[in-house]
């Protein structure tokens, strides 16, 4: 496994921002939108073949022209307030060891460029309605960052969330990276946008990415145009609304009650049970020939 840097950009105490695919692709949309909006430049990659299976081959007149793997790329941008490094992976690696090794490589690059702060982004499946503005759940990797997080707008800590105490679990690289960053002395915060628990996980949910970006850009002290993301979020919401109207009344009433927090506390077990019910509903709809989304 190798990290290949095509360039050695001059960066001053850069902030590293990482995104991977996941539930609602919230993290990936967040980080990729920011990367595009600030016009960050590609400067390196982690060779993928050790971590991922090839997904496409191109053969022309017998000659093996190309074998395509999911990409894992680094980008940079010099800004007035903060220099930025982005790491964007097209897939999360399968298996703990691979996840550990890829996180290690990302942190090597971060440390090599003098990075002191890392942000990862993902999804928080929550009992919210799709018409509500998603909040951002923030998990820092050091206790002293809690006070800073409390000052972020529209952001909650684990202890602020009903029924969770101050406990939780972040799956995948978003969690692992901030944990490993702690071991190596780097500050890191995972920002997770809320996604309604009845929305299929494969559906992109840009509305949550927008919430995360509003928080993240404020922390970074930069302004970006979010109108395209807003438009996408509105289009998605229309489709979700159509789907929502197809949900059986009884289930809808339960959702409404949950949102109005009449059924409290909403524990992890409740969430899993409810998600299962919604999944079964979606499966039945599919079998009946209706594919709502």
């Amino acid at each position: 496994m190798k990290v290949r840097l095509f360039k050695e950009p001059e960066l001053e105490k850069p902030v590293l921002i990482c995104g991977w695919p996941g539930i609602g692709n919230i993290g990936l949309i967040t980080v990729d939108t920011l990367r595009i909006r600030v016009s960050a430049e590609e400067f390196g990659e982690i060779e993928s073949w050790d971590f991922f299976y090839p997904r496409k081959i191109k053969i022309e007149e017998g000659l093996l022209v190309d074998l395509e793997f999911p990409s894992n790329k680094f980008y940079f941008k010099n800004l007035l307030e903060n220099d930025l490094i982005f790491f964007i992976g097209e897939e999360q690696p399968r298996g703990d060891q691979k996840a550990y090794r890829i996180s290690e490589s990302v942190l090597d690059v971060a440390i090599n460029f003098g990075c002191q702060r890392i942000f990862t982004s993902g999804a928080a499946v929550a009992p919210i309605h799709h018409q509500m503005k998603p909040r951002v759940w923030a998990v820092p990797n050091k206790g002293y960052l809690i006070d800073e997080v409390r000052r972020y707008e529209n952001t909650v800590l684990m202890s602020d969330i009903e029924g969770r105490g101050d406990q939780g679990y972040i799956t995948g690289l978003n969690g692992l990276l901030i944990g490993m960053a702690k071991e190596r002395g780097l500050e890191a915060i995972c920002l997770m946008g809320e996604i309604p628990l009845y929305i299929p996980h494969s559906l992109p949910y840009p509305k949550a990415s927008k919430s995360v970006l509003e928080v993240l850009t404020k922390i970074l002290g930069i302004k970006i145009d979010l109108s395209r993301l807003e438009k996408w979020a509105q289009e998605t919401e229309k489709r979700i609304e159509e789907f929502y109207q197809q949900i059986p009344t009884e289930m809808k009433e339960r959702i409404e009650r949950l949102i109005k927090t009449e059924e409290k506390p909403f524990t992890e077990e409740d969430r899993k049970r409810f998600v299962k019910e919604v999944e079964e509903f979606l499966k039945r709809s599919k079998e009946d020939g209706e594919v709502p989304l």
Partner: protein
Amino acid sequence: MERSPYEIYQIPNLQNPSLIVGWQTQDVGRLGSGVINFLNKKFGGEEVGRIKPVDFFSLGGVRIENDVARVPESKFFACKKNNLLLFKSDEPKDEWYRFLDSVLDVAQYSCKMKDLYTVNGNPSLIPHTWPRRILTVFNHPEFGRDVEKYGLLGMYYEGPPAMSSFLLWVAKRRNIPGASIWVDIPFYLAPLKDPLAQKKVLEFFNQKFNLKIDLRELDLEIRDQNEKIARLREKDSEINRYFNLLESGIGLDGEEQLKLAKQIYELLEKRG
């Protein structure tokens, strides 16, 4: 300490051999394993090493095949007289790159291989009475030109890669030239042995390496298989109609394909 993914029992006395690879997972027409078994039998191939299954295969239990428990195998054989290194293996489930890299580590560093061939069947909507095309994929243009001299046709393809193509790609990174050989196999022979396809590949190797292999036993198998199918055609008018359609270049629908495949399987595998 990281353990080695392979074991070498003896360093074979080969002079820059060619490596021939046959996969026995999803082995269309049993071609990959069939060709390796044939060469091993003819040339007295000696087992010289293996890739260890741990890390690459699911080892939570064993698979039972033809009433016998079976663990995944990945074995190297040396045919000293003919200067060939053979590798017969199940396709790895995990860590493909590391597995393929290990195959080439053994072949390159311990056996000094010069080039690579993989043998594969390509399920096709053709009848067994038609001539078989041999298609090829290669990783160096010059090597491809050399292989094409033997009548192999360069393939066009874009989509998910096969293990053989991934191996060619890994070999290319090491500057090892290689080619995958893909022989058309009638779809109804895909789960069975296709002796004609095997003969075509062995004819190619005969020419390429001047092996002088006697292929008469395969001729007998081809004749026997053709006669059995011909008798079925005589007996069963519907099956005969399917073959007539295929021989006229007209495809069969899904249900017809399934029915034909089932009948041929019954005929050749169950009734022998």
